């Protein structure tokens, strides 16, 4: 009964969030240095706009907004998984160093492998995934103790250390590269959504389209893993295998999102918490909510950010930190 109620409540919230996203998309489509007035939006979409209107909407604004939406969803789902698997409410792919690992992967790839523009976008998420996976493996290695298994607090702590050191490593790599590339990478580091091109959506979409449903499919074992080790084993979950698989999914989601959207923290932290507050602890209900919340948050952050300053705007990563860090502190204080 309560389960029925909770699923009805969560679908109501899902609907509401979808509506919010649509509204934000519409409002965002009209905002920017070159304005497309709102009464021209529908004609432009239907193909009756002027060249300028079509160009602004289809080549500049829409790709960027869709990309942010996808990246936000991926980061939020990744955060949901990490928080569940590590039984730590403060886990976030950015804070525990996975983003920085992806950054090192992208930097190495970008600086040292000459590449044609076409293949570049599609290989980028793979490079990021490789870097993120390596970072995650190292972080977990350092947080593992034979007698206790993975120590959740140690994961977050060593993650904080790793994310600083990996950013440092990235800077060392960068400063050996040539100046034009350096400029580009340092913008990327700040969490600038730069893949404002349909190609990059094409590069990110497969990852999200495969990994997000897979996460939902695994929601049940995520529920059980969130209990203690003993309960999870007792209820018949192949703990080690499921955990490894889920972590792999989380790293893949975060890495691919970061590769096109830049180093964005706190979305993966906030969205799962908001979703949990709205729909309770069952992952079947909260995971989709978390993904939509994350997508909406990042979309909102980027829409505000890109209109705050011209010509380049404030990076979405900066906006996300401005909203997310106080929320994190609140969580820390409440606990």
């Amino acid at each position, binding site marked *: 009964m309560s389960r029925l109620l909770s699923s009805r409540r969560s679908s109501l919230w899902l609907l509401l969030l979808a509506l919010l996203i649509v509204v934000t998309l519409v409002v965002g489509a009209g905002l920017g240095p070159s304005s497309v007035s709102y009464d021209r939006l529908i004609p432009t979409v239907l193909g009756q706009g002027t060249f300028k209107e079509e160009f602004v909407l289809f080549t500049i604004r829409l790709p960027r907004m869709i990309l942010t939406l996808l990246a936000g969803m991926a980061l939020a789902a990744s955060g949901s998984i990490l928080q569940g698997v590590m039984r730590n409410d403060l886990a976030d792919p950015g804070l525990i160093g996975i983003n920085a690992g992806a950054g090192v992967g992208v930097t190495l790839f970008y600086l040292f492998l000459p590449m044609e523009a076409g293949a570049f976008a599609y290989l980028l998420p793979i490079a990021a995934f490789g870097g993120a996976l390596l970072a995650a493996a190292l972080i977990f290695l350092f947080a593992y103790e034979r007698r206790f298994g993975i120590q959740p607090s140690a994961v977050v702590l060593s993650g904080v250390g790793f994310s600083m050191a990996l950013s440092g490593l990235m800077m060392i790599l960068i400063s050996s590269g040539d100046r034009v590339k350096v400029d580009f990478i340092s913008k990327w580091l700040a969490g600038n959504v730069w893949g404002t091109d349909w190609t990059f959506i094409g590069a990110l979409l497969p990852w999200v389209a495969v990994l997000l449903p897979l996460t939902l499919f695994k929601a049940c074992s995520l529920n059980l893993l969130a209990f203690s080790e003993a309960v999870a084993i007792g209820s018949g979950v192949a703990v080690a295998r499921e955990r490894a698989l889920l972590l792999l999914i989380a790293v893949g989601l975060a890495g691919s999102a970061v590769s096109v959207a830049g180093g964005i923290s706190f979305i993966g932290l906030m969205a799962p918490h908001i979703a949990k507050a709205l729909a309770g602890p069952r992952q079947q209900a909260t995971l989709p909510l978390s993904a939509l919340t994350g997508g909406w948050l990042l979309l909102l952050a980027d829409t505000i950010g890109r209109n705050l300053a011209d010509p380049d705007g404030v990076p979405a990563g*900066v906006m996300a930190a401005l909203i997310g860090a106080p929320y994190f502190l609140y969580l820390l204080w409440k606990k």
Partner: protein
Amino acid sequence: MSSVRSRRLAQFAWRFAAAAAVCVVLFGLALTLGAANTSWREAWMALLTSSHDGNLQMIREIRLPRVTGAMLVGAALAVAGAVMQGMTRNPLADPGLLGLTAGANAALTLAMILFPAAGYSGFMLACLIGAAAGSVFAFGLASVSKGNLFPARMVLAGAAVSAFLYAISDGAALRYKIARETSLWKSAGLVGADWSQIRVVLPAIAAGLILSLLLAGPLNVLSLNEESAVGLGQRTALVRASLFAAIVLLAGASVALAGNLAFIGLMVPHVARAFVGTDYRYVLPISAIGGAGFMTAADLLARTIHAPYETPVFSIAAVVGLPFFLLIVRRKGRVMP
């Protein structure tokens, strides 16, 4: 009793001298090596004569202030870290990790926007205020949270406060179009350090160092626990306030001179403890010397790895510092946040 004391003092003096000798060698190396080729003789001449030969002038006006700055900043950060570790009884305390550096950074950006004509001493003042605000933020948050203040929680709070303050700093810099200036200042390390800057920063760092060294005894007591400090008749509030002022002076002035740096304040005191034990009267001087030496070496690396280009000294410190951080986390790993 007194013979034990004097033996320990002799031991300490011996180790201090050794550390100082290493520091002097590094100082010499740093003056000699660099993008332009110079010899030991030239470095020596630059220090002791007033001849205006080409290279001598370069060493005197470019390298010497830079190396001096590195030593000052290294000593300041290491002592600030040691004092923070004692005050908070947190082995993971470090000005870069607990929000002081980020606070100074944000204040610097705001000062550049609001008072662009403030000049170097004005900007340093802003850094001091920012460092104070950042640490009040992190400490305050940590102390209002319920229950005991675990080291891990403090680092997390510091990381979040830092992320927030960096975001403010970056966002404001982009909004008001001074991103180029601020990023030059923050990530350049000691690249542009000159004598006029050193003259401004030196009094603040010297005051901070002297204050810390004078209070090393009370810091020993404070690092045990609050009750025994009060029980031993210490005026804890006064001691805390003075030590806090010292930390702010040291960390704020370091940011003003060298931009963002983390891990030095964490790493150096732990190495110092391995050499001279846990008595802060010994730990602080050794940390100062060690920090100066480390920073000189890091800055030397920063300007020679890819000479004539610069590698950010921040990254070198972070990469070298990580193993220490992990080691300490692992040793104290069983504390829950």
